[in-house]
């Protein structure tokens, strides 16, 4: 599988990442060489193999539903680039 420059631009858009012209070129080259290496995986037949998401699998991790304190809002907003009256502010959306 080869990845085209257009696909790189599309993936960058999916990842919400502005890329420069130079980066698009570089990543197209580099992703292609990495994907070429990944082709090695097709050597193995995995039709009857179950996928593993976690090596040490836990199921249904539950806890009692207890009411506890929350972090004070000043602490939550302390790192915000732009906050006002208990809200995070962003530029216009629509």
């Amino acid at each position: 599988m080869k990845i085209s420059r257009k696909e790189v631009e599309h993936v960058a858009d999916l990842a919400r990442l502005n890329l420069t012209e130079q980066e698009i070129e570089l990543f197209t080259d580099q992703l292609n060489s990495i994907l070429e290496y990944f082709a090695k995986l097709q050597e193995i037949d995995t039709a009857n193999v179950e996928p593993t998401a976690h090596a040490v699998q836990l199921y249904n991790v539950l806890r009692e539903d207890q009411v506890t304190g929350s972090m004070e809002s000043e602490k939550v907003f302390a790192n915000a680039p732009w906050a006002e009256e208990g809200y995070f502010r962003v530029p216009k959306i629509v």
Partner: protein
Amino acid sequence: MKVINSSIAELHKMLVNKEISCTELTREFLKQIDKNEPKVKAFLTVTEETALNKAAEIDKKIAGGGEIGLLEGIPVALKDNICTEGIRTTCASRMLENFIPPYDATVAQKLADAGTVLLGKLNMDEFAMGSTTENSAFYPTLNPWDATRVPGGSSGGSAAAVAAREAAFTLGTDTGGSIRQPSAFCGVVGVKPTYGAVSRYGVVAFASSLDQVGPVTKTVSDNAIVLSTIAGHDPKDSTSVPFVKEDYTQYLENNVKGLKIGIPREFFGKDLNSEVRKVINDALKILEELGAEIEECTMPHIDYAMPAYYIISPAECSSNLARFDGVSYGFRAEADETVEMFKQTRALGFGPEVKRRIMLGTYALSSGYYDAYYLKAQKIRTLVKKDFDEALAKYDVLISPTTPTIAYKLGEKTDLLSLYLGDVYTIPINLAGLPAISVPAGFVNGMPVGMQIIAKHFAEGLLYRVAYTYEQNTAHHKEVPALLKGGE
């Protein structure tokens, strides 16, 4: 010199016997930082004032006749992806350059509860992506054994700081070798614990199914002490395993008689440097002479671990790093509308390697490619895990070199794949979630070589036993970098 080279147990004894005060001890390490940092650059933040305040508190306790714990008053430093309340935590990224966490990671909390003195935060590859620490957005860390070489990565600062005696011990994180590889390159002891043995709460996520926190120390016994403190179930991390926590120091026994050690031939392939091979073969001979039974074995799917890892880890990274959008914390670029703000924030906030992995991961997870890449990689992961299960059913532990070569020269690795391949012996262990240790095993051209020991899930005790026996019968861990020999 004596104090900074002392083990945790020795430092504890000095504090208890009032041979040194905690303030004096802390100042000794701060002095080392002052002296060596221009040549090593392991730290991103030094917290001198809070360290000295904490030390004074402990001195007061000792003066008042209070009993202190084994880690109480011991100076420590943490990799900068471990959140510390009120202390800047950057992940060596512009994105978090001014981020001050409102809470402590569980491991930071546990070390604080144990009374350790925090000296500061350590350099790393940005968001733990890399194996040289050259991907730090701020500056590269240099290897204390040779300033023209890298310390390894991504926990390069954690390993270099211990080698340069700038902290009694440190914590790092390991996703594909990021504790073990720099430990090998810097001649120190590093452990990646079993997945789920140590809480990841408050540790900035890279690849959540692979990341683990672990100790970097001068000796095996120091390592067992620290892991005994930071391990254990944490309800705040849903992947944390509810297991019976142990005191790992009980396994520090100088005896490998009758232990079966498997040597997987795939870890000794053509990529292995011949001098490194000789060092590891000599180390195996020593273990054999001490009574271990050594046998070659084979793990047919190991060669597929690398490509599987470079699909799974970028996929998880692209998902985890989606949170850096300039809204609630971290860097924000100015833009007229929100989606453009997201895109520009990420364009300016992330460095090249992080962007590359986000791109790779987004592609592998994108519609039409998911089955060919991500699902395939998860299936390969099953096969790699099975290889380990079978080998570890037959042998108590497996042994390999930690890395195929000694530390690279700065800027040497320009080819991406050749850089990625440097982690070929450590990556499979993360895919299988197993514990592994890297211990100093000798030198090639004056640079340290690490030996990797691998055990079953939650068999850290056995790792420590084998590593301790090797260490007690060799002297490599007593060597110090030339940097430490001048002056004083």
